[in-house]
C-alpha cells in the first residue's frame, strides 16, 4: 500500500527567492525505511515538514501530497509522527511517564487506554527502569529515545525523523537507530529519516534518496546509491559513506559496492587474494618532548559517601601533542577534563604541571561560549577583556579568523550558525588568549563528516604551533585520524595509552571500522587511508 505520494511537489518560502523544494516526485510504500540524505540546505527538513500538516512552513506550495491515499489536509494528524533534531527542546513535561502520556492526553483518550499504551511503549523501548524519573535528569540519548517513544505511543502509521541522531554520541546514536529498526521490523511502521551521518543509517535503510538543491537526484537501494556517490567524484557526501564503501572507492574496486563491515571484509579478501600485508607499527615518540602535565595516582569522588569516579589514574601529557581520551558513558571522561582544567582537585594523588599554563576548554555545546548578538562584537569584547589594545585585538582576530575560516560569519548571530561554523567560531574565541592547552569536550557532536575532516586539520595545525590539544570523545574514527596518542578510560582509570595505530590494532571491538574490515587481511591499518596506502603499495 502506498503510504505517501508526492507529485510534482514544489515549495517556495514566503521569504525566499528560490524554490526550496523543486518538482519532487516520490512514492513511499508501507513498511519501508527511506533515508533522505544531502548536504545541509538541500531541502531535506523542508520536505519532512511539508509532509506533517501542522508544521508545514508558510509559503507557496504547488503539486500534490497524498497521505494514505487521501490528500494531506484531510488526514488525521496523529497518523504522522515526527521526532526532531534537538532532543531536549522537544520535551514538554517534567516526568517521563507524563511525557509518554502527553500526546494521548491531547487526543482525549480514556485513562485505562493511556495506562496501557504508555506501559506498552515503555517496555518495548526499555524505558521501564527510568519511567519515574524527571525528564531533566536524562542523558541526551535517553531523551531522544523518550521522544521516539512518546511519538510512537500515539501509534502513527508514518514516522518522520529529522536528523534524530546528529546531537548524540555514536553509541547513543546506534542505540536510537536500533530502536527505530526494531519498531519498523516488528510493527511495520513506515519510516522516513533524514541524516547526514550515513555510516549507521545506510545499513538499515531500504531505499536512499539523495537531495541536492531541492531536487531528488537519485533514489535507489543503498548499494547503488553508494556506487553513484563514488562515481561522482566531487560529491560532498563521499565522506559520509560507510568505511567499507570508502575503502572500495579508494582501492578502485570492482564488483558490488560493500556497505557494512561484513561485506567490506568479503570484498577486501577477494581484492587481496593470497596476499598478507602487515604494516609496521609506528611507536609514539614522546621521549624528546617536554612533559607539561603529569597526573599520578589520582583519586577523586564527588561526595564523601559516593564511589570513586577516578581511581589510580596515571597520565602524562606532552607539549604539542594531540591526545584523545576515549571511554564509555560514565567512565569519568568529563570529570577528568574538569580536573585538567583545574575545576576540581583530587583527594589522593597529585597533578603536577611544569608552569602555570593557560588552559581553554571548548564545551560540548559550543554556542555557550558566546554572549553577544554578533560574532565580531563578541570577539572584540573578549579581546578587550583579555587586555589587548584595540589595534592588537583587531590584528589577532583577523589572523585567527583566517586560520579558522570564519571571516564571512562576522555579522551573524552566534546561535544562527551551523554546528561546524559554531565550533570554528568558538575555537577562535578560545584561541584569543593564546592557550597552551586546549581541552575539547566531545567536539564531533552535531558535526557532519566534512566538518570533522576540517576539525582534524585545525587540531593538527594547532598542535604544530605548540598547543597541546586534549580531546574527550566517543568518536573512534575521529580519534584515529586526529590523535598522536589515544587513551582508554575505563571505570576511572586509564587502562591503555599509546599511538592510535598500536592502540586500535590491539583492540578487537573498540576500534575503527576500517580496522575491523582489514584485520587479518592487512594488519595494523587503522583508517581507510591506511588501507588505500597499503593497497597502492601492494599494486606496485
Amino acid at each position, binding site marked *: 500500500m502506498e503510504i505517501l505520494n508526492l507529485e510534482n511537489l514544489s515549495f517556495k518560502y514566503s521569504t525566499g527567492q528560490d524554490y526550496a523544494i523543486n518538482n519532487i516526485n516520490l512514492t513511499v510504500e508501507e513498511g519501508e525505511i527511506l533515508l533522505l540524505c544531502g548536504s545541509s540546505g538541500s531541502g531535506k527538513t523542508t520536505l519532512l515538514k511539508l509532509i506533517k500538516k501542522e*508544521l508545514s512552513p508558510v509559503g507557496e506550495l504547488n503539486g500534490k501530497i497524498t497521505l494514505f491515499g487521501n490528500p494531506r489536509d484531510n488526514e488525521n*494528524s496523529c497518523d504522522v*509522527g515526527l521526532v526532531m533534531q534537538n532532543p531536549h527542546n522537544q520535551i*514538554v513535561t517534567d516526568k517521563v511517564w507524563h511525557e509518554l502520556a502527553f500526546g494521548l492526553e*491531547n487526543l*482525549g483518550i480514556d485513562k485505562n487506554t493511556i495506562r496501557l499504551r504508555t506501559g506498552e511503549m515503555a517496555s518495548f523501548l526499555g524505558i521501564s527502569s527510568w519511567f519515574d524519573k524527571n525528564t531533566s535528569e536524562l542523558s541526551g540519548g535517553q531523551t531522544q529515545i523518550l521522544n521516539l517513544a512518546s*511519538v510512537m505511543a500515539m501509534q502513527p502509521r508514518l514516522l518522520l525523523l529529522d536528523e534524530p541522531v546528529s546531537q548524540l554520541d555514536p553509541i547513543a546514536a546506534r542505540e536510537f537507530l536500533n530502536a527505530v529498526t526494531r519498531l519498523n521490523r516488528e510493527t511495520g511502521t513506515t519510516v522516513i529519516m533524514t541524516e547526514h551521518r550515513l555510516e549507521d543509517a545506510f545499513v538499515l535503510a531500504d531505499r536512499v534518496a539523495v537531495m541536492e538543491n531541492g531536487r531528488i537526484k537519485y533514489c535507489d537501494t543503498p548499494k547503488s546509491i553508494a556506487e553513484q556517490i563514488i562515481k561522482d567524484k566531487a560529491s560532498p557526501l563521499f565522506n559520509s559513506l560507510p568505511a567499507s564503501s570508502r575503502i572500495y572507492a579508494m582501492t578502485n574496486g570492482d564488483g558490488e559496492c560493500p556497505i557494512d563491515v561484513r561485506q567490506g571484509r568479503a570484498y577486501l579478501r577477494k581484492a587481496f587474494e593470497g596476499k598478507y600485508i602487515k604494516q609496521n607499527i609506528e611507536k609514539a615518540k614522546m621521549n624528546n618532548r617536554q612533559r607539561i602535565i603529569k597526573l599520578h595516582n589520582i583519586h577523586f569522588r564527588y561526595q564523601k559517601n559516593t564511589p570513586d569516579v577516578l581511581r589510580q589514574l596515571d597520565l602524562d601529557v606532552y607539549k604539542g601533542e594531540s591526545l584523545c581520551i576515549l571511554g564509555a558513558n560514565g567512565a569519568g571522561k568529563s570529570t577528568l577534563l574538569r580536573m585538567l582544567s583545574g575545576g576540581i582537585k583530587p583527594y589522593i594523588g597529585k597533578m603536577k604541571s611544569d608552569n602555570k599554563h593557560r588552559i581553554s576548554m571548548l564545551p560540548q555545546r559550543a554556542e555557550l561560549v558566546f*554572549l553577544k548578538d554578533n560574532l565580531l562584537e563578541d570577539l572584540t569584547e573578549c579581546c578587550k577583556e583579555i587586555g589587548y589594545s584595540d589595534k592588537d585585538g583587531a590584528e589577532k582576530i583577523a589572523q585567527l579568523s583566517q586560520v579558522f575560516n570564519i571571516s564571512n560569519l562576522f555579522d551573524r548571530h552566534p546561535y544562527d550558525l551551523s554546528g561546524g561554523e559554531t565550533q570554528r567560531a568558538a575555537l577562535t574565541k578560545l584561541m584569543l588568549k593564546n592557550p597552551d592547552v586546549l581541552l575539547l569536550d566531545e567536539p564531533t557532536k552535531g558535526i557532519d563528516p566534512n566538518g570533522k575532516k576540517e576539525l582534524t586539520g585545525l587540531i593538527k595545525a594547532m598542535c604544530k604551533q605548540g598547543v597541546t590539544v586534549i580531546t574527550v570523545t566517543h568518536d573512534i574514527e575521529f580519534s584515529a585520524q586526529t590523535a598522536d596518542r589515544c587513551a582508554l578510560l575505563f571505570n576511572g582509570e586509564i587502562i591503555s595509552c599509546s599511538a592510535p595505530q598500536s592502540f586500535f590494532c590491539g583492540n578487537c571491538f573498540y576500534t575503527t571500522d576500517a580496522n575491523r574490515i582489514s584485520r587479518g587481511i592487512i594488519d595494523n591499518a587503522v583508517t581507510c587511508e591506511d588501507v588505500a596506502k597499503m593497497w597502492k603499495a601492494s599494486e606496485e
Partner: protein
Amino acid sequence: MQRFSAFHPISSFLYLISAVCITMFSRNIVIAAISIVAAFVFYLSLKATQSVWIYPLIFLLTAITNPIFSHNGVTVLFFLNGNPITLEAFVYGVYLGAVIIAVLLWFSCYNTVITSDKFLCLFGAVMPKAALTISMALRLVPQFISGGREMLEIQNSIIPIRCGIIKRVKKHIAIFSCLITRSLEGAVEQLSSMKARGYGLHKRVSYSRFRFTFADFLLLIYTITGFVYIVFFSGLLNYNYYPEMDKINFDVSYILCAVFLLMPTAINLWGEIKWKYSISKI
C-alpha cells in the same frame, strides 16, 4: 513500607489537610500536644529527610516571648523589670509554639507524601490546562538553573570574572539575557513538538497514574467523618487561656482525636508488620 504514601492523592491530601486544620482551629493545648506527637511519629515512620532541628528552637522562642510581651492572666509567677509574668501567658506561649511546630511537622510529612506527581494529579482534575503549565514550569526551572550554572562556568573559564562588582553584574546580566534567548528559541521548537503531537486538536484530558481503590474510599470516609466530628461535635476545640485557664477534663473525644491523628502512622506500621510477616514466610 510507607503504605500511607501509596494511597490515592485525593485521600491522602484531604487527610493531611484536615489534620493541619484540626491543629490550627483548636485552641486546646491537649489537642496541640496530641497533634505534635502524632505528626512526629508519622514523620519518623516516613523516614523523611527534611531536617527538623530548628523546630525546638522555634518552640522555645514562642514559649518564652509570649509571657514577656503579654501580661494578661491572673496567676502571677514573678515580676520581670516590674512587669508581671503570668502562668496563663506562659501556657498560651507553649500552646502557640506547639501549634506552630505541629503544623510545620504536618507539612514536612505533606512534602514527603504529596510528590509533584500527586499534586499535579489533584490539580489536573480541576484545571487540566493549568496543570500542564505547572508541569512544564517544573521542567523549565531546573533546566534554566543548570543552564545558567553551566554557562557561568564556561564564561568563567574563558575569562575569569574579575572582582569589581559592576563588571560581575554586567557579566551576569549578559549571561541571563543569553539564557532567555536560548530558552525562547527552545520554546519555538517545543511548540512545534506539542503541535506535532496533536496539542489543541481535541479537548485535553488529564492523565494520572493513580487508581482510586476501595481502600482510598475508606480513608476518604474516615477523614470526613473524623474531621466533622472533631471540629463540630466534640466541643474540644474551644478553650480559654485568659483571664483564667479553663479546666481540662478527661473526655473520650481526646482519645478519638488521638486515634484520628495517629491513623497514618498506624497504616505505615501495619504495612511494615505485613512486610516482615510476608518476608518471614519465604
